């Protein structure tokens, strides 16, 4: 036997590591043979299964033995056969988990008749492994010997062997004990049969009325799986054997599944299933052996996307033996059906319907992506991870898991518990997901669940308990159109379904009369704003779980709207709310009908007017001179104010460039624009009298404000109508960037466009339906996007064709040097990236990328923590240790103080009334002392230092000296700003006058500045 094993290894050309393992395995046999002779002579003398005193001290049985008493005897005999099975043999193993699966066939002698009953086989299997583990642990060849579960099935432990030292992560040998071939009679293990007796399992005699024992389909499958290891590997090696393309395809599929976290844990869609699926498609001639890896991947995805295995199962068995059970029998017992070549084993037995639907959903998305001709399809399909937290809109954790045990009793799931051997999480999962899917109805696109990862434990420990294995995490993918409704409409009151509806919703169901006269059962949820409506699923889930599964609200940790608090503080800005200033708080300026800030009061509330661009009709009457046009525009502004005051009684204030209009507490800033003005600003007259058009700063600014901005705003408005979560994502993104004190480098529009890209190009995800997931993807995009080599194309309104995009990319490569560091392309702006022209600088962008890469894992970990997220604002607090000087501001003069990330417990009254005030004077507009102070600092010291500030209520300004500013240079009359002359080595050079500048910071911001902290250890002059 050993020889065949060796031959096998040599055939497949294993490396030296594996040869070591081989020796290890052979050594077991040597040791075991000795043991055999002197310890257990015959089965009749061997101890009972329950007598485990023979087990050495250092090893525990890797199985929960509940109930403990069970019939049967056990003794150890060396394995009858050692065979390598699984993907390593087939050459379809993928990194980083290189597993060599070894099947150990237990000799017939240690098994007894009826071992299939009442977990006896599993007990023996576990004891067999425990014995092996004890001996292998003493072998110096192995670095670690640990237990784990086969695919997370807690009745089937396996033994993991790893090499020493740095090779530890290279390879893992997994030992699977299995019964001798033909030991179990297949007809005993059909899904309709019972192999776990209620009398034994529940310790009570079956009810005497002769009701049949409940079938144990999962238990039967787990036994069958052990018997079929060899036949599966044979099947796969004949199919995949010589076809390289098929192997590639299987490997690609495994990567695809892994990136989507689909292959993990009990009931995962494992790589083995993918291989079997390929074998199935080969057998029905959907895949040919000459196909390439890509074609195989495509065909499998296509098959998955179009075939619903929960309704129409498939089978690898093509014999027409009438003794075989029908597919329909399997559908009754299992949600997903995929039979192997024996026709008796359902390969997808543990796969739940929601997992399969998730696979289908992913397959559909991927097919769309493959068909879309996107040039980075490979990247998106196979190289982008899709962890649950970033793929699903809302996440909820059920924790502690022991509550599910109570839920099982409440849902009357005793037969399932018996079938799953007491694994209440698996037993309750199916009914719970069905319950939630029904309750969420039209709000839900997809419900997915993620089991905690399969644990490993040391051989000297007991296996982990069910309740210790973390939390059950559910992911909800929401349907934005279903989210707007606050009503669940039930049947009419006199219909028979009404009772079901009432039973389902419990006390929340009410009889309501509707406008069309119908009287119906209905459930109404309380939600006013859109952000509250988005959280209705939370109400639904907690209500249903408490009602039907006895899971109290405290055990449901819902992660959906935690970040909302950060942007709701911004209410004063967006969405705009009317302001009613208190007159006593302000100084009056009656002749201009305006309010002014008062020096003896704190700074009044920050009111930002909403800009309206008013294009006047073209006319030949306009003058053709830039200065004159400005005068005419000013005249229009004056006239506009006059007319609005006269005809509509609105309070107006005109200036040369705009007219502010106060209406119902909102302030609009109307700017009159003349279409030809940018053109006229561009005109240059050469000495020969030739007129040419050249962009000037003034013309570019004007074009941006009056032409491109309205276009962009309307496009983004359209996007918001389509995806209501857009504004939330954009606001969170801005909030975060500004909280990191980097707001100065990024215009509003550039961040809006990055957020828009998440909705317009969500691949491989779906467009986000909650701000939380959108923000996570924003961080992911910012931290991983290659800004240097790629433009971010934001295809608003889908105006750019694929060919145009290719053209844009090649144009980008050709002109990379002239373009800003961050390039965002829209259909209206195909070359210049106007919104990022003036910033950020490469260093600022780099800083943002670093911060995003740091923030993403922290935030994801917080949100995935079932015990609660802790302090969600952690990632919104800026690191201050990198700045050279900190200028602390006094909150009294920060008008947006309440918008700060850590909302201050108390701030100053800003002179706003809650109710509409009596008369209407123009409130103080856009008066923000910190911004005025910053402008002054940047003007005076911008050559020497950079200033960072969070305009939303930040209390600190970070100052960073420019690296070049401390280099002495020779005297120049044009560049003496804040510098002084010193003699260095007999030469007169200029250096910054740092001490005086630091004192200037305090002088310029007197009243606003609380303290200037210089960290002089950070620099040397």
């Amino acid at each position, binding site marked *: 036997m050993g020889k065949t094993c060796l031959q096998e290894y040599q055939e497949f050309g294993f490396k030296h590591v594996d040869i070591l393992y081989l020796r290890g395995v052979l050594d077991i046999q040597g040791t075991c043979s000795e043991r055999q002779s002197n310890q257990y002579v015959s089965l009749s003398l061997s101890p009972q299964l329950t007598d485990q005193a023979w087990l050495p001290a250092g090893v525990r049985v890797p199985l929960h033995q509940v109930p403990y008493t069970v019939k049967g005897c056990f003794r150890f005999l060396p394995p009858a056969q050692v065979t390598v099975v699984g993907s390593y043999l087939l050459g379809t193993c993928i990194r980083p988990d290189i597993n060599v699966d070894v099947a150990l066939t237990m000799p017939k002698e240690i098994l007894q008749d009826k071992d299939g009953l009442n977990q006896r086989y599993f007990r023996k299997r576990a004891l067999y492994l425990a014995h092996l583990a004890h001996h292998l642990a003493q072998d110096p060849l192995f670095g670690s010997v640990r237990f784990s579960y086969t695919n997370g099935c807690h009745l089937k432990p396996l033994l993991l062997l790893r090499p020493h030292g740095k090779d530890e992560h290279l390879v893992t040998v997994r030992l699977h004990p299995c019964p001798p071939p033909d030991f179990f009679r297949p007809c005993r293990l059909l899904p309709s049969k019972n192999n776990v007796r209620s009398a034994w399992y529940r310790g009570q005699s079956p009810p005497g009325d002769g009701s049949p024992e409940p079938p144990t389909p999962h238990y039967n499958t787990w036994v069958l799986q052990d018997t079929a290891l060899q036949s599966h590997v044979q099947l796969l090696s004949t199919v995949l054997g010589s076809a390289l393309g098929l192997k590639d395809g299987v490997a690609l599929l495994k990567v695809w599944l892994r990136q989507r976290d689909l292959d993990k844990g009990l009931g995962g869609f494992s790589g083995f299933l993918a291989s079997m699926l390929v074998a199935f498609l080969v057998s029905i001639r959907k895949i040919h052996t000459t196909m390439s890896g890509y074609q195989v991947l495509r065909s499998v995805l296509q098959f998955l996307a179009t075939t619903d295995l929960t309704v129409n199962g498939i089978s690898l068995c093509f014999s027409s033996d009438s003794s075989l059970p029908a597919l329909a029998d399997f559908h009754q017992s299992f949600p997903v059906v995929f039979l192997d070549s024996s026709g008796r084993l359902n390969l997808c037995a543990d796969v739940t319907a929601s997992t399969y639907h998730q696979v289908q959903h992913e397959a559909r998305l991927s097919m769309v992506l493959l068909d879309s001709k996107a040039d980075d399809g490979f990247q998106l399909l196979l190289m982008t991870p899709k962890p649950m937290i970033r793929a699903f809109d809302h996440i909820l954790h059920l924790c502690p898991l022991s509550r599910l045990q109570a839920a099982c009793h409440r849902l009357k799931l005793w037969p399932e518990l018996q079938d799953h051997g007491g694994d209440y999480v698996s037993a309750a999962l199916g009914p719970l997901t069905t319950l939630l899917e029904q309750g969420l109805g039209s709000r839900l696109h997809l419900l997915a669940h993620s089991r905690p990862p399969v644990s490993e434990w040391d051989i000297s420990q007991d296996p982990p308990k069910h309740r210790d294995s973390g939390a059950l995490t559910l992911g909800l993918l929401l349907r934005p159109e279903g989210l707007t409704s606050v009503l669940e409409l039930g049947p009419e009151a006199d219909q028979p379904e009404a009772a079901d509806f009432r039973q389902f919703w419990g006390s929340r169901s009410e009889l309501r009369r509707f406008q069309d006269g119908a009287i119906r059962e209905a459930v109404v949820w309380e939600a006013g704003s859109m952000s509250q409506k988005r959280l209705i699923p939370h109400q639904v889930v907690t209500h249903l779980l408490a009602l039907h599964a006895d899971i109290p609200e405290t055990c449901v940790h819902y992660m959906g709207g935690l970040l909302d608090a950060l942007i709701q503080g911004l209410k004063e800005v967006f969405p705009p709310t009317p302001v009613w200033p208190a007159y006593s708080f302000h100084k009056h*300026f009656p002749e201009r009908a305006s309010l002014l800030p008062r020096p003896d009061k704190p700074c009044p509330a920050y009111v930002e007017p909403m800009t309206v661009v008013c294009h006047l009709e073209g006319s030949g009457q306009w003058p053709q001179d830039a200065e004159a046009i400005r005068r005419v525009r000013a005249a229009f502004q004056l006239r506009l*104010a006059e007319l609005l005051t006269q005809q509509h009684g609105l309070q107006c204030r005109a200036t040369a460039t705009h007219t502010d209009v106060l209406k119902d507490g909102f302030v609009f800033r109307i700017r009159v624009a003349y279409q030809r003005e940018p053109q006229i600003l561009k005109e240059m007259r050469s000495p020969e009298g030739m007129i040419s058009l050249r962009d000037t700063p003034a013309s570019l600014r004007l074009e941006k404000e009056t032409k491109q901005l309205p276009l962009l705003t309307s496009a983004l408005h359209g996007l918001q109508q389509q995806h209501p979560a857009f504004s939330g994502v954009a606001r969170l993104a801005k909030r975060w960037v500004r909280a990191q004190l980097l707001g100065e480098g990024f215009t509003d529009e550039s961040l809006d466009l990055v957020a828009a890209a998440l909705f317009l190009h969500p691949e491989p995800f779906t467009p986000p339906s909650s701000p939380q997931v959108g923000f996570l993807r924003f961080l992911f995009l910012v931290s991983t996007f290659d800004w240097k080599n790629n433009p971010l194309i934001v295809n608003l309104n889908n105006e750019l064709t694929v060919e145009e995009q290719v053209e844009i990319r090649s144009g980008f490569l050709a002109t990379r040097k002239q373009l800003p560091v961050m390039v965002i392309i829209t259909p209206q702006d195909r070359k210049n990236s106007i919104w990022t022209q003036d910033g950020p600088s490469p260093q600022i962008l780099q800083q943002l990328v670093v911060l995003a890469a740091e923030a993403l894992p922290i935030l994801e970990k917080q949100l995935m923590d079932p015990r609660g997220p802790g302090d969600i604002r952690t990632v919104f607090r800026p690191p201050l240790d990198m700045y050279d000087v900190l200028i602390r501001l006094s909150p009294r003069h920060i008008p947006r103080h309440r918008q700060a990330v850590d909302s201050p417990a108390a701030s100053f009254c800003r002179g706003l009334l809650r109710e509409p005030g009596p008369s209407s004077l123009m409130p103080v507009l856009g008066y923000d002392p910190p911004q005025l102070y910053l402008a002054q600092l940047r003007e005076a010291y911008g050559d020497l230092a950079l200033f960072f500030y969070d305009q939303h209520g930040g209390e600190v300004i970070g100052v960073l000296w420019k690296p070049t500013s401390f280099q002495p240079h020779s005297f120049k009359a044009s560049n003496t700003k804040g510098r002084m002359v010193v003699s260095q080595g007999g030469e007169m050079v200029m250096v910054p006058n740092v001490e*005086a500048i630091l004192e200037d910071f305090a*002088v310029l911001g*007197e009243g606003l500045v609380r303290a200037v902290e210089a960290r002089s250890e950070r620099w040397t*002059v």
Partner: protein
Amino acid sequence: MVARRRKRAARDAEEGIPSPPGYSAVPIKFSEEQKASHYLYMREHRVRDGAKSSWPQKRTLFVLNVPPYCTEECLARLLSPCGPVQSVELQGKPELTESPKEPKSKFFHPKPVAGFQVAYVVFQKPKGVSAALALKGPLLVSTESHPVKSGVHRQGCREAGGGGVLPGPWWISDYTDSVLDPEALRVEVDTFMEAYDRKMAEEEAKAKEEEGVPDEEGWVKVTRRGRRPVLPRTEAASLRVLEREKRKRARKELLNFYAWQHRETKMEHLAQLRKKFEEDKQRIELMRAQRKFRPY
């Protein structure tokens, strides 16, 4: 650094404040409370031969590095002990060439935020300049007799002398200044437009007068207003004309007619292919560098 600073201070005391050649350095501080001071670098205002300057020779002092909290009024007060000051003007940059200065409208050209500035101080007598150059300092911007406030509390001394000073903090007074009188704006717009219209009308009249009238060499200027309007003299128009010409020429030209033409096109084609190949190679190289074939 502190040690160095101290050393430097000691040296300053011994040798006087270092100053660039031709300039004298005068320390200036905001008030007594500040420990460190900025330095004003002053010299007599001079211009190169032949160049004109709007400031009188001999009597003008040129000051560099005026800190942002020091206004024109403050500077005048600080320098008045040297002799009566006629005018002070602060600018962002030293003036290189003489330019005609127009009074700028406060409606259309809001005053920019002040940083470090340069000043031109005109004394009534040349003696003032030499006295200023000999100043020892340190000058104090804010003293007890003339307190100057900054930041939120800074007094609005911007319109000093204008009469209509609105008392109140600096940023607040800035805000107050930005609330303008619409009537004044209207008046200004009207006067400007009247002047503009008059100018336009004059120009038009002049053009009309000159139309068709030959100059002394006998040339007649053709304008847009003539009976047959000519092409406007813009770059776009001339490019259009050139393009048309080129097309016309291309239509007439014989291609691939002579053997040398054949040869040249082939060579060109090859050169282009080579170039494209190189470009593609570079692009693939770049793509390789970007792609990290490591999915996780």
